[in-house]
């Protein structure tokens, strides 16, 4: 039986250059917890538009967090108590 050659037949991988800076689309994908390629569908947007969208995504996420931690929607009387409970449960 012929021995398998120890020499690789394919050329060596190219030397790694400096990592490319993340694009605004990469940043948006990271915010949304998605792989960068999954948002390639938005490639017709300009960088400014992607930055605007990312800002809105961030602001909405923060606003939702505040709504939750402020126990929004619960009766005023018990709201402080719930805030304390929610804070405790977060830890």
């Amino acid at each position, binding site marked *: 039986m012929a021995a398998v050659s120890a020499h690789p037949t394919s050329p060596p991988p190219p030397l790694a250059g400096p990592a490319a800076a993340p694009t605004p689309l990469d940043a948006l994908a990271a*915010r*949304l*917890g*998605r792989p960068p390629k*999954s*948002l390639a*569908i*938005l490639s*017709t*947007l300009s960088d400014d*538009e992607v930055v*605007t*969208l990312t800002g*809105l*995504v961030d*602001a*909405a*996420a923060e*606003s*939702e*967090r505040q*709504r*939750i*931690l402020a*126990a*929004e*929607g*619960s*009766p005023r009387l*018990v709201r402080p108590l*719930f805030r304390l409970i*929610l804070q405790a*449960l*977060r830890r």
Partner: protein
Amino acid sequence: MSVLATRAEIRKLARLLGVKPDRLSFLEREGAGPIRRVREAQVELLFRQEHRLFERLARWFGWLPSWTLAFFARLLGPVLVARVAGELKARHAVEVCARLPAPFLAEAAMNLDPRRARDLVRRLPTPLVVDAAKELARRGDRMTVGRFVDFVSDDALGQVVAILDDETLLGAAFYLESRTHLDHVIRLLPEERLGRILALAGDSPMHATSVLSILTEGSHSMRRRMGDLLAAEPEKVLLSLMRTAHEEGLWAEILPVMHSLSPQTMCEVVNLSILEEPAVLQSIGDAADAQDLWGIVLPMIEMMEESIRSAVAFSMTRHPREALARMVQSALIGEHWEPLLDVVARMPPVKQDEFVGIVEGLGAVDPDLRGRIAARAAAYGFGDRFVPRAVAA
């Protein structure tokens, strides 16, 4: 997906992000699919954050009997309950929901992602779903009604469709999550009621936009059925639809809808007075040329009355030679020479010469075709434009 589906997606994303839809108008060229993906990713992001907190709350609540939990739910409020509901076992959550008032459930529905609570939504007793839907309708929240249509049981859907008022149902159809579900909802409607809902298009541009959305997203057979119902309504309904289609720049979507109509209805539509307006014809021509829809438009011309054909011909003179060449190509593929010759016969001689030049180009490959068209052109009264070239050949 259509421009209107894109606009519906923009409004849903805008509500999720807490901004006015105008802020997201730059997304319009992306199409509905990519915008929906962003919305779904954003929903997941919102539900992922503080996930541990809600998981713990749900674990605690899981130990409580449903009446106690319903009491706590009222204290927690609909915003938090919507989040906890997705973490509870569906059976337990349903028992709790059964003890909560309709306004509370409606408010929770506004904050709930139906995809994450699919099992819960499907198991909800029909009377509960109906009460919540009534409450949402009372608040004018058609978007939330539309978001839930795909997820409720068939029984609940049938009853919700039966009790909702026409305006809410039409508005909700605009926001349906799955457009394939649209046909199913429409089939649930008796003919008389569907006709009444479609007739709302004559009342306001907003209703007309929703009807156009249903027409563009519906299947071929559904379009035909709805078209026939629309044709039975007073002319102002069809006129309002066409006016809205023009003002919203929707011809590229509406021309294929018109192609699906029954011959009688199509004949009525293509002879509406609005089609004599130069700006309207120019927009239709631009859309047909940009989207390669001449194959759809040419058979419509055949059904038009003399005055509208002349208006079409006049409008076509403003299009460049390349557009005429594309019309010729469509006539060749679909054998639509008669309406095209009819229109060209009404054009000034310079445009007729352009047409002849294009046909001569075809004649180099297919002399029989050239001869046939030249003979028909003679029947339309401009065959002499061919003669010198025929002699030269």
